[in-house]
């Protein structure tokens, strides 16, 4: 017989959701729990390997679609939302204050929802590369 564990304080709702998934797929509950544990462990690994720039971009992406931030200026650094402001100047000021307090290698100051503009470089492109 394989070794088992007794885990206290499991979230009942989450367990029920897992049980429902297992029933729907027709597999034992332990298999879904094993998959969930492996998935979480892998996710932790990838989060740990995430660069500061990736973390900042992930935070920015998480703000998209949230009506509270649409059209607002945000300052993001070290994977955290530092400020939400109405102007670029305010957001920059908040980033400046943040950098004085904490060491950071990358930051984002952007208006939430703004899309990329097209850029074309003709004359100098060959030399530039």
């Amino acid at each position, binding site marked *: 017989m394989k070794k088992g564990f007794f885990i206290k304080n499991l979230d009942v709702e989450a367990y029920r959701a897992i049980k429902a998934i297992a029933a729907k797929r027709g597999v034992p509950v332990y298999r879904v729990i094993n998959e969930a544990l492996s998935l979480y462990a892998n996710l932790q690994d990838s989060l740990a390997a995430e660069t500061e720039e990736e973390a*900042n*971009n992930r935070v*920015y*992406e998480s703000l998209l679609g949230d009506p509270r931030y649409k059209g607002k200026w945000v300052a993001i*650094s070290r994977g955290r939302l530092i400020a939400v402001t109405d102007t*670029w100047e305010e957001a*920059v000021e908040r*980033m*400046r204050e943040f*950098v004085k307090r904490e060491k*950071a*290698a*990358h*930051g*984002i*100051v*952007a208006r939430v929802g*703004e*899309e*990329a*503009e*097209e*850029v*074309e*470089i*003709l*004359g*100098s*492109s*060959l*030399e*530039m*590369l």
Partner: protein
Amino acid sequence: MKSSVARWKCYRYGDYYRVLAQIYSPLNDAWRKVEFLVDTGFRGDVFLEKRIYEDLGLQMVELPLRAVPVARTLAGSVQLRAAITRVRIAGSTFKVKAYTPLYGYGKNLVGRGVLNRLTTLLVKREKTCIRLSES
């Protein structure tokens, strides 16, 4: 009576049409002089050498990746980084998007995004002149 004589700021030609401008470091709240090549083939505001981009601390106020375009060039597509800053040319100050390549060194170019906001005169192989604002 107000004078109707236009005043110009001119920069000497040297292999390319050039302008001397100042670019703002939002992080340090300071300005830095940079010589730009006038590039009418560049659809964008300003392009910076990566060294200058980083000296200005623009990587701390960068736009998110989804808001940064991939530049189309004669040599193919170039992945860029970008930040909002300000540029001061011939007494006029503009808010601009400053670009630098994700890989490679880059060059200091002033593109049509800025030139279209100025009155610029290119005197053949002699100088670049920018009309000073009247205020």
